[in-house]
């Protein structure tokens, strides 16, 4: 059987982990198969969880979250016959498949939407853990905003520096209120479970928000402008379907692979005008065609757009 | 002829605490409007019996009749309803409450305080005029003297309309004059028709104030007699079961060189000056007795000399060598190394570790002595052997080094401490309340040991609140009051009256001369 390890935040975070969970569920429903799962409760449990699943014969073992990287680097060589899949992280081992996403590209598109939806010049971003991965979101978002409105101000805050930052909705809400006080009209939350607080605060205060990873439009209909979708579910589903033979090595999913994108459904249809959609779709084509190059923060640790 | 039913009648009361039978089949009756005394050795069961009457403990068996009616007393509330009030040996006051608050506690009228307080204040004024119990209703209790605190206790009972008043060792902490005032109040209450039970160890007081007296022994009530038909010596015999000689046998002192010299000693503790310039000296072969009401600086005097607390001023020398009384470079262990033994006032809280076995207690304070150690580790075998030897010579019963200290009776616990501190024949022995809570047999033994040590040419500083003990043992007597020495007397040239006045801080013409 395949198995999956969810990261801190848990499989019902309505975001990253939940997306992974949905992929696994879809596989289970379609094939009638069963899989094993572990929800991590602390950073220190990673290694034992991986070993336990490998010992029990689970294959492939999927790990959601970059925080699993260093533990996997140690465990993978001990179980050469098991295939491991890590999402959002890169582990250079022969039996590991590393799946990463071009979040900057998706973020660019929702950044454009934010700038178009905002009446004033100010939009904002709330990140989860302060790490390069999240800066990649922020930077892509800011580039999209500025592409629409060169005068725009992007306020960015990170929630924390540890895994706990994925699961701190109160803090997320406070940061959002602060940003609204500074004039923000659209807030993009790339913060896992913390984002729930961000979306809630935005809804309470009557501004727009942008969800992340899963489609979060339904959470506050009319308040969530869109969601930056990251198809973690597809990555999990693919791994589960292909089984232990799944191709190892590094795999990058961008706009072209439909690994990232933005969501439109009945909950936000009223918020997005035809022109907005047309502009974003054009940009999407241009990025896939290579006409627009969105700078990836993790390439050099810098961002061409200044954020506050 | 019909006699009025007795105010209190107890029938067949028994009570055990685990293996200890504290009261065994006790019957007793007290007539209305009388003062009834109860005497007995420590642990005889007096307090237990009264606590049962007050509903504090529940008797295992037996019945209580109040004014002839059977009255079960399951708790203090029931006792209060039955008109019983009790003044405990240790006051039951909330120290940081005011007098009024203490008086109304548990007897408030209604859920709001304001009316109760107003009413209590009025009643207190009345009561204090009626009985001469003067206390400021708004004073905070902890700032009152013990004598006044006791008045608050009595006011509390009067406020509750107690008809029956139980007083458990009320005079232990009072100066003689405070005790006199108390007795006048009791007489007064008696004339009002109230019934009073008085527990005391002082036979003099029994003779002075009670109408009838009961004697308790080992949990049983052995005798009840009319006070007018008995005598102190007869009572003592009834208590102990044999003739007792309360005199201490000793030869006149032959003082030698000065051992301890104390000059202008000052001690401050808890923000209060406890010792305010005390000077004295003790010679070889001499016992200096410190008399005084508890809490006038005696405790601090022992503790500062024993190295437990630091002095704030003054100088102390031992054989003319200075002692570091600032506590910076010395503690109780270094004092012991200098040849100062110390039998503390409180054996259970200070002198012994109650959970330790006897042998471990024998090393207590001397645990760094090389003879108890081998290398880095303690030599348990050596300590046990030493303990067995001491138990034998000091008649500790049972002579079992492996028994925890708490399982010895008070007297035997004291003997363990005495053996430890005196067996090394210290040059100076500090000894506080040597016979507190100790029965007559052990008192005799301990007194003999003290005299013997003196006769070996050692210096002894004796602190006791028992004037009889001070008078009996001391070669010289100093009286402490409010952190000062009020005067020094020779036992042969003074009497309890004069000492009592000094203890109360009164310096009269007759006492001034020698001071």
């Amino acid at each position, binding site marked *: 059987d395949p198995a999956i390890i969810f990261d801190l935040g848990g499989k019902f975070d309505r975001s990253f982990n939940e997306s992974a969970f949905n992929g696994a569920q879809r596989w289970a429903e379609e094939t009638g198969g069963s899989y094993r799962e572990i929800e991590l409760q602390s950073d*220190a449990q990673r290694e034992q969880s991986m070993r336990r699943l490998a010992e029990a014969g689970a294959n492939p073992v999927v790990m959601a979250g970059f925080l699993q990287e260093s533990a996997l680097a140690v465990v993978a060589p001990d179980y050469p016959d098991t295939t491991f899949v890590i999402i959002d992280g890169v582990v250079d081992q022969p039996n590991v498949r590393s799946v990463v996403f071009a979040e900057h590209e998706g973020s660019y598109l929702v950044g454009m939407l934010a700038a178009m939806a905002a009446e004033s010049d100010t939009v904002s971003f709330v990140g989860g853990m302060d790490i390069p991965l999240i800066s990649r979101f922020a930077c892509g978002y800011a580039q999209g905003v500025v592409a629409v409105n060169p005068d725009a101000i992007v306020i960015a805050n990170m929630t924390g520096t540890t895994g706990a930052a994925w699961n701190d909705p109160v803090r997320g809400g406070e940061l959002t209120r602060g940003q609204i006080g500074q004039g923000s009209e659209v807030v993009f939350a790339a913060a896992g479970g913390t984002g729930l607080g961000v979306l809630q605060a935005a809804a309470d205060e009557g501004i727009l928000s942008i969800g992340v990873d899963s489609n979060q439009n339904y959470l506050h209909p009319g308040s969530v402008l869109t969601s930056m979708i990251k198809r973690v579910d597809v990555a999990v589903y693919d791994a589960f379907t292909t089984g232990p033979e799944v191709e190892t090595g590094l795999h990058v999913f961008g706009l072209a692979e439909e690994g990232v994108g933005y969501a439109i459904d009945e909950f936000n249809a009223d918020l997005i005008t035809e022109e907005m959609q047309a502009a974003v779709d054009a940009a999407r084509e241009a990025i896939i065609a290579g006409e627009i190059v969105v700078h990836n923060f993790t390439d050099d640790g810098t961002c061409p757009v200044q954020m506050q | 002829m019909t006699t009025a039913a007795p105010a209190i009648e107890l029938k067949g009361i028994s009570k055990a605490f*685990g293996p200890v039978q504290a009261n065994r089949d006790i019957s007793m009756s007290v007539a209305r409007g009388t003062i009834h005394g109860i005497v007995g050795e420590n642990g005889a069961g007096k307090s237990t019996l009264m606590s049962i009457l007050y509903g504090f403990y529940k008797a295992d068996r037996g019945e209580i009749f109040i004014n002839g009616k059977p009255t079960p007393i399951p708790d203090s509330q029931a006792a209060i309803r039955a008109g019983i009030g009790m003044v405990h040996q240790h006051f039951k006051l909330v120290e940081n409450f005011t007098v009024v608050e203490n008086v109304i506690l548990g007897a408030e009228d209604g859920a709001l305080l304001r009316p109760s307080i107003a009413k209590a204040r009025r009643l207190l004024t009345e009561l204090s005029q009626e009985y001469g119990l003067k206390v400021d209703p708004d004073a905070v209790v902890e700032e009152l003297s013990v004598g006044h605190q006791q008045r608050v206790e009595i006011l509390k009972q009067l406020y509750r309309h107690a008809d029956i008043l139980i007083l458990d060792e009320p005079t232990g902490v009072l100066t003689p004059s405070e005790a006199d005032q108390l007795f006048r109040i009791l007489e007064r209450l008696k004339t009002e028709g109230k019934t009073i039970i008085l527990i005391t160890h002082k036979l003099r007081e029994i003779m002075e104030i009670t109408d009838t007296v009961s004697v308790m022994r080992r949990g049983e009530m052995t005798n009840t007699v009319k006070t007018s038909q008995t005598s102190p010596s007869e009572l003592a015999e009834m208590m102990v079961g044999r003739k007792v000689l309360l005199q201490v046998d000793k030869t006149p002192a032959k003082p030698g060189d000065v051992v301890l010299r104390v000059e202008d000693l000052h001690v401050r503790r808890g923000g209060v000056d406890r010792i305010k310039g005390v000077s004295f000296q003790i010679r070889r072969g001499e016992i200096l007795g410190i008399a005084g009401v508890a809490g006038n600086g005696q405790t601090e005097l022992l503790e500062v000399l024993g190295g437990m607390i630091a002095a704030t001023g003054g100088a102390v020398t031992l054989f003319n060598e200075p002692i570091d009384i600032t506590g910076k470079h010395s503690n*109780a262990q270094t004092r012991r190394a200098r040849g100062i033994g110390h039998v503390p006032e409180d054996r259970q809280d200070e002198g012994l570790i109650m959970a330790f076995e006897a042998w471990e207690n024998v090393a207590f304070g001397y645990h760094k002595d090389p003879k108890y150690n081998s290398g880095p580790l303690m030599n348990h075998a050596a300590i046990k052997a030493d303990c067995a030897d001491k138990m034998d010579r000091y008649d500790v019963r049972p002579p079992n080094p492996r028994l925890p200290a708490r399982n010895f009776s008070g007297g035997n616990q004291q003997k363990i401490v005495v053996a430890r501190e005196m067996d090394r024949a210290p040059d100076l022995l500090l000894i506080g309340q040597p016979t507190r809570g100790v029965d007559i047999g052990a008192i005799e033994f301990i007194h003999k040991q003290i005299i013997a040590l003196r006769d070996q040419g050692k210096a002894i500083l004796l602190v006791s609140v028992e004037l009889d003990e001070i008078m009996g043992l001391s070669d010289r007597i100093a009286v402490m009051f409010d952190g000062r020495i009020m005067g020094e007397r020779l036992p042969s040239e003074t009497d309890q009256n004069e000492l009592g006045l000094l203890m109360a801080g009164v310096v009269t013409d007759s006492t001034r001369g020698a001071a």
Partner: protein
Amino acid sequence: MDKMPKWADVILIPVISVVLALLVSGLVVAIIGESPIRAMQVMVRGAFGSAYGWGYTLYYATNFIFTGLAVAVAFHARLFNIGGEGQAAIGGLGVAIILLNVAWPHWTIALVAAICFSALFGAAWAAIPAYLQAKRGSHIVITTIMFNYIASALLVYVLVNVFRVEGSMSPETARFAEATNLPTASDFAGFLGFGTSAPLNFSFFIALLACVGVWLLIWRTRLGYEIRSFGHSDTAAVYAGINPVKITMITMLISGGLAGMMAINVVMGEAERLVLDFVEGAGFVGIAVALMGRSHPVGVVLAALLFGALYQGGAELQFEMPAISREMVVVIQALVILFTGALDNMVRMPMQAVFLGLRRRREAAAPRTPAE
């Protein structure tokens, strides 16, 4: 006279208490609709059913021996050290610092250095609460809890800002050099079936050594005598010339040092790097272990083994019976603390009555002592 023989107090009562705790735990499992029998089986098999299980059980037990001893030593001075969690975390920092910054030629020397540093750091973290307790009477229970939170913030700070490896996103240090890795169970006891995955490592022996050391300290040395005296009565301690400030400090330093040494097992022996949250509640488990073990090293080892098994069994439980959360272990731990620590009178009172009854019967049977 004592109401009960000593063996009843130190063995019978804890055993009854633990049994009660386990019964109530079973009840909790039943109430949430799972089979307590099956849960028990899963846990026992998970903890003891394989070399893999033993490897984890003993590994966890090693942690709990250290933290249990830490709490026990403090208990002897009647100090309630709830700060094992933070002291261990800071001990881990000590281990990381010394292993990352020095090129150790061999694990034996590295181990000695790591022991010193973990103990030193752990002790240092206990020093401030100890000082405040000794000098200012600040309640050590609350200060040590606060120091747990502060330690965790400090650890986050250093892991994020000081030790994080360039380019890595996880808050953890680089791996320690190969030469410092401790032998694991597969190295020294591979013949028993331990595989390379078992985290049990050489630290286990250090823990056992620490037990012997603590036993000697408490019951054989003058310092131990002073610690116990102070624990029973601080006024008596002063009378005996024992300095309360000194004893409080020394005891807490030893306690903190022992808690810190837990890091050898986890940081040096298992993770081979410093990760966030590596203590995982072991500091708190130490309280239960010390209470159950009646603060005696032998009792601590047995209780640590029990809790090691609970932890490993609990991990299996989560795996085999997903409806039962891993936190069930915390519940059991809580119940053990409750029954052995706070409700012990509930067990003791009836036991005393039983023993008293027995004694009365014996005395009644024996001939009456002649009248005095």
